[in-house]
């Protein structure tokens, strides 16, 4: 007995170990049959509704008769790796480098955009051929026979990677962002039923709110924010004000300003932090940030929600994905209203000069998944992507999760009517995140700019632009190296296309040759020309004093001369 008493802890530890060993030894991991086709899908959406909707859609996919026909009696299992957002970058890095990444991976968070681009180039499979083919799961619907890309509301534009000239991802949903507000608190503090829709009016209301105290004697915070919610303001308001940069920096004339183009524009002096659009973007940000709670840069999204739910803040900007949870969290205490981002008016004395129209909302689809080259069952993974983006699958997925469907004709959940995106107007042309070094410095300086009033716009401009121009070159060169690394992959694909054209005996050889030449043009020749222009811009300076959309005076004169000559020829009587 004495022995037992003195050794009781040890006995207990051994007992616990034996128990755990028995549990582990007798447990069957996920009951996966040996011949099952397992598709793993990695993402950072930890909301229960997302996990549930993927599970439900996965089951429906496995039970689909088409799958039964294609894969016989082999079980199809869709498993999820739902990883917290904060650890997603490290997780995906180790999975990719260890070549153990899931079959399908959500792309966009955790790593800087240039790094994702490099990853897509190295570790993901092109989905271009899939985008050209009809979705078999749409048979019997209005989308039958339509190429996959045309079945999306944005024609799958979000899945197309300009730098790689390939379709790399398939989007499951669409998302927009709005400002949510506490209706009762707004009424109590300002007497307003709805907040003003213009920027100055909105700031005035914020000022009014910030001067009032709650029952405990604390001042109200007009806008609940965090490092995460700050991004909403950027996408929703600040970046839209930089649309004027398009004419100065869109060197390849694709309608957007990439990070490399932005760097080239800064390097050549076409743009600077004193350019009106850039300057106004940062000054407007500073105006709004005055009304955030102190220290928001060090907070996370749930901290902002905490403040809003405690009724200590009136506004909070966030997206469709949070709408359901936010309303659920606050339904017992107050009513939530939804408003669009307040834009400066065109006649605004300070900011009106950059107001070239209303705010465009990215109609592009989101929640994008790419197929990794480590997939053990790439065919099944492709089928799963097709199933989720079919009319039926997409409706089912988004009705459970409560998001806006990405597929044309899929019904919109009624609660999301306020979130329908606006498809015309100004969009962002401000892209400073060039690569690792500049991304880190931008985030550091920008958060300092947000949190430290003594760090003025001029301080910020001097500090960041110096670093950007000096060290951005290294990031830019790394991007160029990455681009060179894609050439091999392109060559392989083009060789395949050429081989198909050469060997075709079914009468489609001419069509295949056209396709091949077109691909050579779009994937090799034109990008090479664009790159060459950019390299020359960055290394040798500007070739022309004005932006890419502006004609040189000589060109104008030449064009005018040619037009005159044409008119002369046309009249026929001048000679």
């Amino acid at each position, binding site marked *: 007995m004495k022995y037992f008493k003195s050794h009781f*802890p040890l006995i*207990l*530890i051994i007992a616990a170990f034996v128990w755990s060993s028995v549990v582990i030894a007798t*447990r069957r991991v996920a009951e996966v049959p040996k011949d099952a086709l397992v598709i793993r899908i990695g993402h950072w959406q930890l909301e229960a509704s997302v996990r549930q909707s993927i599970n439900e859609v996965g089951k429906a996919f496995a039970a689909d008769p088409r799958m039964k026909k294609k894969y016989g009696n082999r079980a199809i299992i869709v498993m999820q790796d739902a990883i917290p957002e904060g*650890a997603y970058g490290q997780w995906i890095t*180790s999975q990719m480098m260890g070549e153990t990444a899931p079959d399908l991976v959500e792309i966009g968070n955790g790593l800087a955009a240039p790094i994702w681009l490099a990853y897509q180039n190295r570790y993901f499979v092109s989905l271009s051929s899939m985008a050209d083919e009809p979705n078999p799961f749409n048979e019997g619907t209005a989308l039958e026979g339509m190429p996959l890309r045309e079945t999306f509301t944005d024609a799958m534009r979000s899945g197309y990677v300009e730098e790689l000239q390939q379709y790399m991802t398939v989007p499951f949903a669409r998302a927009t962002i709005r400002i949510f507000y506490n209706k009762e608190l707004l009424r109590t503090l300002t007497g307003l039923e709805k907040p003003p829709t213009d920027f100055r009016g909105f700031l005035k209301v914020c000022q009014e709110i910030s001067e009032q105290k709650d029952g405990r004697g604390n001042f109200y915070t007009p806008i609940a924010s965090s490092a995460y919610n700050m991004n909403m303001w950027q996408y929703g308001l600040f970046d839209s004000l930089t649309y004027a940069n398009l004419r100065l920096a869109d060197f390849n004339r694709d309608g957007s300003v990439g990070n490399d183009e932005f760097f080239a524009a800064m390097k050549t002096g076409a743009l600077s932090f004193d350019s009106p659009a850039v300057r106004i973007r940062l000054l407007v940000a500073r105006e709004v940030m005055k009304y955030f709670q102190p220290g928001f840069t060090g907070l996370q999204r749930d901290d902002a929600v905490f403040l809003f739910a405690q009724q200590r803040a009136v506004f909070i900007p966030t997206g469709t994905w949070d709408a359901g949870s936010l309303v659920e969290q606050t339904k017992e205490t107050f009513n939530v209203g939804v408003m669009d981002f307040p834009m400066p008016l065109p006649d605004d004395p300070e900011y009106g000069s950059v107001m070239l129209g209303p705010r465009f909302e990215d109609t592009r689809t989101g929640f994008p998944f790419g197929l990794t080259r480590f997939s053990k069952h790439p065919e099944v993974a492709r089928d799963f992507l097709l199933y989720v983006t079919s009319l039926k699958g997409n409706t089912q997925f988004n009705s459970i999760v409560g998001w806006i469907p990405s597929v044309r004709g899929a019904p919109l959940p009624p609660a999301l009517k306020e979130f329908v995106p606006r498809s015309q107007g100004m969009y962002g042309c401000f892209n400073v995140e060039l690569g690792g070094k500049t991304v*880190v410095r931008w985030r550091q300086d920008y958060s300092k700019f947000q*949190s430290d009033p003594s760090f003025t716009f001029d301080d910020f401009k001097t500090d960041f632009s110096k670093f950007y121009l000096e060290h951005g070159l290294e990031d830019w060169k790394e991007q160029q190296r990455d681009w060179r690394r894609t050439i091999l992959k392109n060559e392989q694909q083009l060789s395949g296309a050429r081989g198909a054209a050469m060997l075709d005996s079914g009468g489609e050889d001419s069509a295949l040759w056209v396709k091949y030449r077109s691909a050579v043009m779009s994937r090799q020749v034109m990008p090479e020309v664009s790159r060459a222009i950019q390299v020359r811009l960055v290394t040798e300076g500007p070739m022309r004093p004005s932006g890419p959309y502006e004609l040189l005076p000589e060109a104008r004169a030449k064009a005018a001369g040619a037009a005159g000559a044409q008119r002369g020829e046309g009249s026929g009587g001048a000679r």
Partner: protein
Amino acid sequence: MTPKIIPFAQLKYHWTIYFFAIPSLALVGLFMFYPAMLSAFHSVYRWNGADINEFVGKENFTTLLGDAEFWRSFRVSFIIGVWNIFKMVPAVAVAVCIHRCKSTRAQFFYRILFVAPMVIPPLIVMLIWKSFFFEATNGYLNRFLFSTGFFDVLVWFDQTFQLGGIFKAGSKPAWMGDGRLILFACIFWGLPWVGSFAVLTHLAKLGGIPRELYEAADLDGANWWTRFTKLELPLMMGSINLLLVLVVIDTIKDAGMVLALAGIEGGPGGVVTVPALFMLRKAFIEQQMGAACAVGIVLTAVVMTLKKILDGTADWQLLNRREKSRYRVMGMVMALLLYAFMLYSDGQRPKFAVLNAHDRAWFFLFNAILPGLVMVFLFPWGWVRERIWGPMVATTTGVDAWRVTLRQVAAREAHLARMGSAFYHWRERVKGLGLTFSRHGFVLAILAFAYLPMYLMVIVSFKNNAEFYAHPATLTFPLHWENWAQAWDAVIPSLANSVFTTTASTALTLFLALAGAYFFARVRMPGSSFLWYCILFLMMMPTIANAIPLYRLLIDMNLSNTLSALIFIGAASGQMFALFVLRNFVADLPQDLFEAADIDGASHLRQMLTIVAPLSGPILGVLGLIHAVGQWNEWIMPLIVIRDAERLPVTVQLLRMSGEYIKLWGPLMAGYAMASIPIILLFILCMRLFVRNLTEGAVKG
């Protein structure tokens, strides 16, 4: 115990002793050394961790050494390190207070209470500090400052010393969001900075002080302060030095705390970027694994140099005059280098005249005062007193040391005479009571702070979100037991995984480390010093850059997504600390025991089984518990290695719960509380054993 030296010629008679170290070294070599060497190899490559691997020679190092941000990160590390050393003081104070409790029951009770907070996962403590204390609008720190009026003092301070408006009337300071305050937050968090391990280690040392010394001090009329400075502090220096070494190593090579508090960018303007965080960014944001490996190599060199200096100062009394002079010169040169580094670390010499008031204050503090203090500390005062001041005073005043001693004797006699009076007894009693109350009051106040995270964890676990938003820190009714039911469903399936990996890894660690420690402590064989330095090298090396090679190794060994991987990695990483401590312990065992065993013809195995193993029970218990708690709370490796939900340990399971965008605080906290229960149970059951062992000299320092 002096290790037995076995020359190469006698190796054929003793080669079997290598078998004691081989399992331990094989484990460390495979899971620690191989990735570390691979990482060192890649430090001369432009390596992205995968397909890009271009030789660049010394480019990574030259770029790194020319990077102003890298040097700035050392400045941050230096500031945090200095504060970390100051933060060791409360643990010493608490240990002394507990040690001076007359009741052994009270001492035991306090020890138990100080051990319990050890089990709270660090993630929770950090979360609570961020969300409850540092939150700007309604956090406890700001509430305290405003309610006590102390904030007005800070505003006055700001205005008087022109700190640039950090504290402005009517504006709440943003501790985590303001670049000028975030460093303070990184230093301040975790108040009262009383780690259980530190307190118990100090208590172990204090427990070894003979009672006679205290009686002699009483007779000499030593007051509480003199007893501390002249008796307890010198005898605690062993444990203080041990903790100092660990603090310095952690400050340089660890980024976990700053990462959790300030994020990977190191806060606004990157102001709290420490070297290890800089390396983490290189690896995972910039994808420059080769450059990150180069940072790792530089950091290892820095840590090893610091360790060498600390060892020198720790053994100060044992050094001869020449060695002392060498260390002094080395220290003064380093102080001068530090001074120069402070001046030039921003790439240009700061012009004092053009600095603003805020920078001027920093300039003075870190560019002049601290290096000055280092110089003062290192100056050979003893030599000056003995050789210059003493003779000078003797020749001018005629008073010599003998006279002074006589004066001291007279004072002692007067004190003894006073002790006989009734007034003296009455005064001493009142003073004693006052000291007792203040001692208990101090310890209880520290305990209250230490238990605050645990209290909040339990309180919040009974709330729904609406109640949490309205009253985050007080109990609300009805209690939401359903949170615990929800947490039960989430936690229980993964509990078996955690129990299995923790116990297996702990057992493996202790078993292999004890055998390895015997090898390193008992004999000095050809190659043993080299192997020992390899282990020390690994202890000093930041492990972040090794993560990718290690992960690839696990895949090659077909261990990815298995619990075995967690056991092996846990045992390998725990092995180094265990070897470090156990080697000292075995070396301190009486030499006579081994000599007697040698005479009796006992083999090494017999000596190991009959002498070392039975005597190592206490320290194995302590190391086992420390390792088990660390392994239980580990989440980074499991997150990377384990894929299947069924195999996840409980911490990762909880992390996934906390990662939800709108946290369900009740179930989350219930989950954390539930995950802490097995370890708390283990502590309660092993408490007597653990506390006794730790205080009976398990940690030798």
